[in-house]
């Protein structure tokens, strides 16, 4: 055991003393997490080309205006549908990020907004597209209010709304007399406003109308996305929103830290091979499995240390609040196993430092980027998300996201953790086999 620990300690000491290696293992990932956390928190433009299906069951001028406004939104690609079931299926399957349903009676409910339950717009969102979901919510709310104010800005629609409201007021028997008096006064005042408005130029710019709504909410945007139970069979994680963008970027930072660990340890073994120190290790009366175990232990401890360091910084300084410590521990541990396997594979494949470094950096960088370590997978195209499944970085980020803010259960975490452990076992086995062959 002493030789295993000695090899592990020596490898870690070497990594920590290598300034460049230390920078990429500890400093760069944290810098990445902080920088992109600040960028995302600072209101960047967010995702674009969001696929939204619009289902107008109301068919009124106002509902038509909402659809028009949505179609005019540059961030959205709106497809019209007349089949609710098909449209919902499209969201569940991930073909679309969301579905907006303007139910029948929307226009009528809007005209009697002071009475009744008010108008409602339904939203069905893809749980995995948390960023798109936010954009869609905002766009639908803005389009709804803009359409409403455009429709009621003077003219016949306004008068119809007032007449409808007066009729409702007259029929409302149980209304408090004081409220009745206030509303009658309000309707009379609105009459005067519309009369003045008729004499002025048409107000067509309603861009800020939404902001005048204040506390009065004539339109309710109701989330009609699948309930957690309904999506239990789906591969998609539950809907949740991070408390802070650092919960997303620090999971990515962990992925970068792990990548640097793999490079550091994998290339370290290649360097030992080319420099001859591996020869000396092999000549020592230490079984080969102990040499490999020592190197694996060093890599494991460093991977663990990197993750603990980054996540602790996130928790202590940047407001990261893990939803599940159990899932987090499972994710961190399985990530260590997975990336130790990768490091051993890299160590066995690499023959010269130069070629190994170039190859490793290229392959790992592509895997990291495809796996969502650079840009979150949520904003990537469908084919990238599918391709990401081959990347171990995807599974690291998925399980860490799940632990940090997606409310992933331990059962749900079994899949990404299992895949990471599988990668580790396969990588380690192949690496050890190649390593053994290399003796002769």
């Amino acid at each position: 055991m002493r030789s295993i620990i000695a090899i592990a300690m020596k490898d870690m000491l070497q990594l920590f003393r290598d300034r460049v290696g230390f920078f990429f293992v500890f400093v760069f990932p944290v810098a990445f997490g902080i920088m992109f956390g600040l960028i995302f928190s600072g209101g960047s433009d967010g995702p674009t080309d969001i696929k939204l299906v619009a289902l107008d069951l109301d068919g009124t001028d106002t509902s038509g205006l909402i659809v028009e406004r949505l179609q005019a939104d540059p961030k959205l690609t709106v497809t019209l549908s007349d089949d609710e079931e098909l449209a919902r299926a499209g969201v569940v399957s991930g073909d679309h990020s969301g579905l907006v349903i303007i139910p029948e009676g929307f226009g009528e409910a809007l005209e009697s907004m002071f009475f009744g339950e008010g108008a409602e717009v339904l939203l069905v969102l893809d749980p995995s597209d948390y960023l798109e979901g936010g954009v869609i919510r905002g766009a639908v709310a803005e389009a709804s209010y803009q359409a409403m104010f455009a429709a009621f800005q003077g003219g016949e629609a306004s008068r119809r709304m007032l007449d409808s409201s007066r009729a409702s007021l007259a029929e409302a028997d149980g209304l408090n007399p004081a409220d009745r008096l206030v509303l009658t006064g309000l309707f009379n005042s609105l009459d005067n406003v519309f009369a003045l408005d008729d004499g002025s130029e048409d107000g067509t710019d309603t861009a800020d109308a939404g902001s005048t709504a204040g506390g009065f909410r004539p339109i309710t945007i109701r989330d009609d996305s699948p309930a957690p139970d309904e999506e239990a069979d789906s591969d998609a994680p539950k809907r949740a929103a991070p408390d802070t963008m650092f919960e997303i970027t620090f999971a990515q930072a962990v992925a970068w830290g792990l990548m640097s660990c793999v490079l550091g340890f994998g290339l370290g073994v290649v360097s030992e091979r080319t420099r001859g120190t591996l020869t000396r290790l092999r000549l020592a009366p230490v079984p080969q499995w102990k040499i490999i175990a020592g190197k694996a232990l060093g890599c494991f401890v460093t991977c663990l240390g990197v993750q603990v360091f980054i996540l602790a910084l996130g928790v202590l300084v940047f407001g990261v609040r893990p939803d599940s410590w159990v899932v987090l521990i499972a994710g961190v541990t399985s990530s260590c196993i997975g990336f130790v396997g990768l490091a051993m594979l890299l160590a066995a494949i690499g023959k010269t430092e130069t070629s190994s470094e170039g190859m490793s950096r290229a392959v790992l960088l592509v895997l990291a980027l495809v796996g969502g370590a650079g840009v979150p997978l949520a904003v990537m195209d469908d084919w990238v998300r599918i391709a990401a499944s081959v990347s171990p970085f995807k599974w690291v980020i998925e399980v860490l996201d799940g632990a940090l803010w997606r409310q992933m259960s331990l059962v749900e975490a079994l899949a990404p953790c299992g895949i990471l452990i599988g990668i580790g076992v396969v990588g380690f086995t192949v690496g050890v086999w190649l390593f053994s062959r290399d003796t002769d």
Partner: protein
Amino acid sequence: MLVLRDIRKRFSAHQAVDGLSLHVERGVCFGLLGPNGAGKTTSIRIGVGLLAPDSGEVIVNGRGAPTDHDIRRHIGLAPQSLAIYDDLTARENLVFFATLYDLAPRDARRRADELLERVGLTDRATDRAGGFSGGMKRRLNLACALVHKPDMLLLDEPTVGVDPQSRNAIFDLVRELKDEGVTILYTTHYMEEAQKLCDTVAIVDDGKLLAMDSVEALLSAHGGDSVVRVTSSEGVREVRAPDPMPELSRAMHDPTTTALEIKPPDLERVFLNLTGRSLRD
């Protein structure tokens, strides 16, 4: 101590070692002399069990193959490449390798300090090896091979790229080790080193053993005549003779002689006579 019997090793189309047989006696300094690419390093790697021969047999201490860990405990190797960690200090390098040989931490540190003094690196004990000169790295490389007090030490081109001071320090250490009874297998392509240090020399080329004997015997058998070079007012002339004394005497009594030079047979000439080409070709 070390017996290599009819060893053969091929790498693709290249026959690196071709039927090599060596017998290294206990306590001697055995030189393996040959040009670059002669198969010396491959033979060393086979000799310590790092490389499996295609055929043939290696026996250490009359007990068995060097792949056995108990046998390996008695072998030390200073590879031609500098097998030390640049990011570790000199002492850390030695302590690390000592730990692999099951030395307790305190014993490992004590042994490290002994060796640092022995190779003249005590004052650089806490400096990282990456900042050492080539000669200092060579000395540390050699010290790392000695942490476990091996009975047999294999030195693969231990003086390549070192300054004269470090070379002399290495020579002194090799002599001391030999005096302590350590068996040394010393590979080099510098015939002067083999001639200075080795009791027995095996000359190899293209993986084959050309000759093996004591230095004196090799010189006598394959070195040819001594050459007396006489410079006089009449010009320069070279005389080859098994015994140079008569020619020397004659030249010294010649009043026209201005300079005399004697070139006794050396291993370079032995190699030339055996192969028809120079050792450094």
